[in-house]
């Protein structure tokens, strides 16, 4: 019952605020959604304590579909993994709900916003507690819809609409992979239930499927297809282009959906399917490779961006890469650990950035900020905490999880483990650098905003700063509390995450050489130090380096030209094809001969038919006689054979 309330309370909030927002008013919608969300968050705290180390169980709700052998139930799967996820989702979502009360206070459609946020939370909870793949897909698409609605929340802004559509479409590409993955699962296991699939995975280790005439290792196919789905949702290299654009949405949305929860659904999926991935080393190698590449790729772009939210967005993308390569090298629990800590400090950073934007009268360009730390000290402190956690400053949350990931990468036997390790270290340097750059450019140095904006700089209200404080506490302490997740014996998970007996990475990561253990700290120090030099001491350096490495800088600044590339390869040909089919196929052929043609023919017939009516009696009589003559001749000639 606790879990049912936990999952469905946000849905009730969404329905009430969404359908009756006009009746209960702005304040009412805020109270209802925040109240129900608070209930859910409270239960999620209970949930995490009662699920850790406990045996998995399921809470059946009711039967959904039952077609021959295809059986799908609505049920909640409660184990340590879904417990952690429920905690992350509900807890952070609650504080973001509260923050939104302040952040969106000037907006015209508050009930709609609150309703969408709650709807998203419900879908996300449905996703993480799913008991089968179809239910997972329901949650998966549900968060997709909510994300679409929230990115396009300010629907009068063309760029927001475009970003929403882009996010939706790019996700569809990934969804195709996910759907095919589900289909292959059903083909192999004759079920979409997790229990059945996980129990049968070992037996299927040598099975093959025939795809396009070639024979492939079945679990590898499943793994890769599911990972393609995960790549879309989690913005991995290739399908990442929607995430930076998604920053068009209100900042709480970016914090909740595009940093803390939804984008981590892919990581969750890979971890959830650890029993399958463990028997699909090729798929794991691909996960590690893509993850590591994304980590470095997004970090390089983050170095050059000026929009404060975009920097954090690329940072998110990069951190998701970390989580994926952690899973790829077999340390699923390290990936989930990072997911959990990251949720706190990245939400904090986004909300902090939102607070800055709020203070700067909706200015997002860091070039027009600077020197404001004295005016908004609370936000400043919070941003520092978030940054330290992100770069992995010792004993903050990120320190534990990032270390664990890099150590796992070193210790693993995955074919890409060194690739992942070295790129991970490099990305850590870059992370520290762009994080420092963000702090120094935003808060220090001379203020570059105009007079009008400067006079308005103010600290955010309590309703916004208190959630910041809570998240900051989480960013500092979450690592400490969650350290058990990567314990050697895996007792925290109680079987929720599966490791093959040969996979000893959780054990090995605790016994790596000292320099490996120290390297993340060194990387952090180097990165932060360089950014301090560049942006505080020698402020002409960034420009000089940029011009010295002009081609590289331009390449990074333009996001590796991914958008342009996709525009050339997919968007324009698709548009051309669509235009051709529309003009040539639809308008010129179907419309012309179909509806328009028939309508024109009908009109012409009508004109002719009414012209028959001359008004002369002898014409009429003649028509009658012709009719009789015709009928008689018909019988004479044809009718009687």
């Amino acid at each position, binding site marked *: 019952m606790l879990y049912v309330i936990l999952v469905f309370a946000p849905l009730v909030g969404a329905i009430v605020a969404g359908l009756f927002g006009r009746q209960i008013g702005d304040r009412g919608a805020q109270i209802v959604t925040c109240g129900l969300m608070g209930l859910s968050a409270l239960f999620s705290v209970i949930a995490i304590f009662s699920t850790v180390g406990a045996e998995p169980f399921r809470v059946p709700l009711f039967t959904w579909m039952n077609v021959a052998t295809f059986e799908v139930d609505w049920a909640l799967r409660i184990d340590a993994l879904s417990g952690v996820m429920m905690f992350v989702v509900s807890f952070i979502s609650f504080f973001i709900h509260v923050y939104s009360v302040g952040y969106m206070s000037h907006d015209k459609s508050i009930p709609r916003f609150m309703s969408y946020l709650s709807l998203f939370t419900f879908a996300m909870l449905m996703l993480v507690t799913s008991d089968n793949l179809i239910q997972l897909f329901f949650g998966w698409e549900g968060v997709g819809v909510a994300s679409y609605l929230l990115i396009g929340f300010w629907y009068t802004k063309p760029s927001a609409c475009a970003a929403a559509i882009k996010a939706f479409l790019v996700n569809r590409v990934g969804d195709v992979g996910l759907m095919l993955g589900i289909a292959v699962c059903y083909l192999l296991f004759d079920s979409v239930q997790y229990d059945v699939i996980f129990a049968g995975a070992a037996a299927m280790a040598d099975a093959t499927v025939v795809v396009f005439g070639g024979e492939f290792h079945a679990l590898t196919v499943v793994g890769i297809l599911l990972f393609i789905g995960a790549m879309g949702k989690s913005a991995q290299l290739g399908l990442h282009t929607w995430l930076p654009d998604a920053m068009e949405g209100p900042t709480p949305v970016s914090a909740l959906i595009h940093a803390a929860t939804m984008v981590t659904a892919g990581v969750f999926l890979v971890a959830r399917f650890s029993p399958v991935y463990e028997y699909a080393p090729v798929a794991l190698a691909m996960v590690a490779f893509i993850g590591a590449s994304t980590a470095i790729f997004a970090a390089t772009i983050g170095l050059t961006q000026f929009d404060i939210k975009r920097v954090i967005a690329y940072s998110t993308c990069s951190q998701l890469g970390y989580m994926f390569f952690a899973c790829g090298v077999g340390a699923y629990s390290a990936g989930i650990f990072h997911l959990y800590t990251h949720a706190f400090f990245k939400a904090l950073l986004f909300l902090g950035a939102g607070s800055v934007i709020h203070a700067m009268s909706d200015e997002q360009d860091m070039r027009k900020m600077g020197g404001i730390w004295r005016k908004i000290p609370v936000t400043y402190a919070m941003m520092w905490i978030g940054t330290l956690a992100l770069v992995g400053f010792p004993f903050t949350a990120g320190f534990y999880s990032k270390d664990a990931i890099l150590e796992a990468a070193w210790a693993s036997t995955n074919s890409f483990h060194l690739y992942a390790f070295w790129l991970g270290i490099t990305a850590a340097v870059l992370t520290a650098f762009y994080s420092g750059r963000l702090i120094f450019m935003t808060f220090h140095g001379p203020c570059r905003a105009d007079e009008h904006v400067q006079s308005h700089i103010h600290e955010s209200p309590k309703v916004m700063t208190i959630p910041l404080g809570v998240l900051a506490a989480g960013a500092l302490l979450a690592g400490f509390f969650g350290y058990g997740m990567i314990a050697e014996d895996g007792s925290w998970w109680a079987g929720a995450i599966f490791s093959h007996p040969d996979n000893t990475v959780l054990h090995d990561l605790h016994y790596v050489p000292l320099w490996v253990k120290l390297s993340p700290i060194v990387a952090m120090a180097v990165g932060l130090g360089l950014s301090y030099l560049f942006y505080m001491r020698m402020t002409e350096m960034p420009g000089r380096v940029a011009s010295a490495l002009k081609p590289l800088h331009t390449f990074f600044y333009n996001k590796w030209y991914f958008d342009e590339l996709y525009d050339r390869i997919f968007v324009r040909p698709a548009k051309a094809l669509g235009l051709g089919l529309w003009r040539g196929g639809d308008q010129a052929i179907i419309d012309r001969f179909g509806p328009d043609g028939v309508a024109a023919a*009908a*009109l012409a*017939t*009508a*004109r002719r*038919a*009414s012209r*028959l*009516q001359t*008004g002369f*009696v002898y*014409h*009429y*009589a003649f*028509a*009658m006689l*012709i*009719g*009789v003559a015709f*009928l*008689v001749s*018909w*019988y*004479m000639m044809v*009718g*009687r054979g």
Partner: protein
Amino acid sequence: MTEALPAFDIVPALPEVFLLLAGMALLVVGAMRDKDASRVVTPLAALALLVAALFVIGADKTADPIFSGHFVFDSFAAFLKVVILAGSAVSIVLAQGYLEDQELDRFEFPLLILFSSLGMCMMVSANSFLALYMALELQSLPLYVLAAFNRDQLRSTEAGLKYFVLGALASGMLLYGCSLVYGFTGTILFDDLGAMLLGTENGTLELGIGALVGLVFIAAGLAFKLSAVPFHMWAPDVYEGAPTPVTAFFAAAPKVAAVGLTLRVLMQPFGPVAGEWQQIIVFIAIASMLLGAFAAIRQTNIKRLLAYSGIGHIGFALVGLAAGTERGIYGVLIYMTIYLVMTLGTFTVVLMMRRQGRYIETIDDLAGLSSTRPLMAAAMAIFMFSLAGIPPLAGFFGKLYVFMAAVEAGLTPLAVLGVLASVVGAYYYLRIVKLMYFDEPAEAFDRQGRLELQAICAVSAVLVLGFILIPGPLLATAQAAAAALMP
């Protein structure tokens, strides 16, 4: 069968006898009164029709043919007589307001309708070619006069004259057909002819070529009364030219009577040779449906539009006849009943289209009716949707039954054509709805003071709307009527 009591068993013809006597009496009454003749005669005439209908309902429907086999009274005749009498009574009531406004309120008007109704009742009871012709002429002559009733107006007299000339031609054809059939078969009694065709040796249902030509001529004469293509040309001109209440009457009861007569002639004497006449009916049905659909599109006068609509609807009804089965007859009977209600309802709305005391009849005058007269617009919309055959209104079921019968009889292409024609037809019905609901309002109509119009309009709308809820009584009676016609 008639040997036992050859003399004057007039009980089955009691409704007709009553109508005749009532008509005569009212004629005398009308002639005696001076000023308010029409005010007295009109309600009495309507009442007489309703009383006759009660006679019909109460009568024994299993009697043998009387008058030496020329006149038959069965469930089929009874069903149609009730519909006809009710339709005529409503037409009389509808007319009064218009006639008073136009200073046409002469007492002959209701009486002409009454005598015409008498003819119609005899039509559906006719059991020989002689009775058929006599009844048809008794029905037609008052109609010619009614068409020209507004004799000071050119359009009306022209309509009457056209109708008369063409009607005479059609009568001639019919009579010629009858004589051919008589000449080749030697009988004018339907029962004898049917028995003769049924009893043809070796089961080969052979109809001589001469008699077949006669059948074609009879069919042509009947098609004229039905205003089916290509014998329809009179309809638009007469509908437009005649005074509106007359048009309403034309569109309602006489059509039902003509359909009844056609059904009886084709199903009873010529029933055994259904394969022969089916081709005529299929041709006429298709031609009527298509012309009704296409020609109406460009009409601007609502009466003219309804004329084409009526042509199309006859086409649809004939689809059921073309099937030639009991289900088909059943479908036709339901169709015509529903058609009568929809048409009378529509004409009441047309009769309410009055601006500063003048009656108007162009479609554009209906623009924006929903904002000036919402109830009237709603009623009109119901009739239009029903005429277009959109579920769940009654008009849909009429079409459903005839198309179903056609499909069951293996005439699927005909049913498909019918559906396509009704799609085209839907265009002009829905255009009226669009005009009423989405266009800028034209000048408002006069407040309608006449209660009877509003009542008829409301009752028709309720019937059309409510048919789906209580279809039972109509379906059951129609079932019995259709069964009576089958051998």
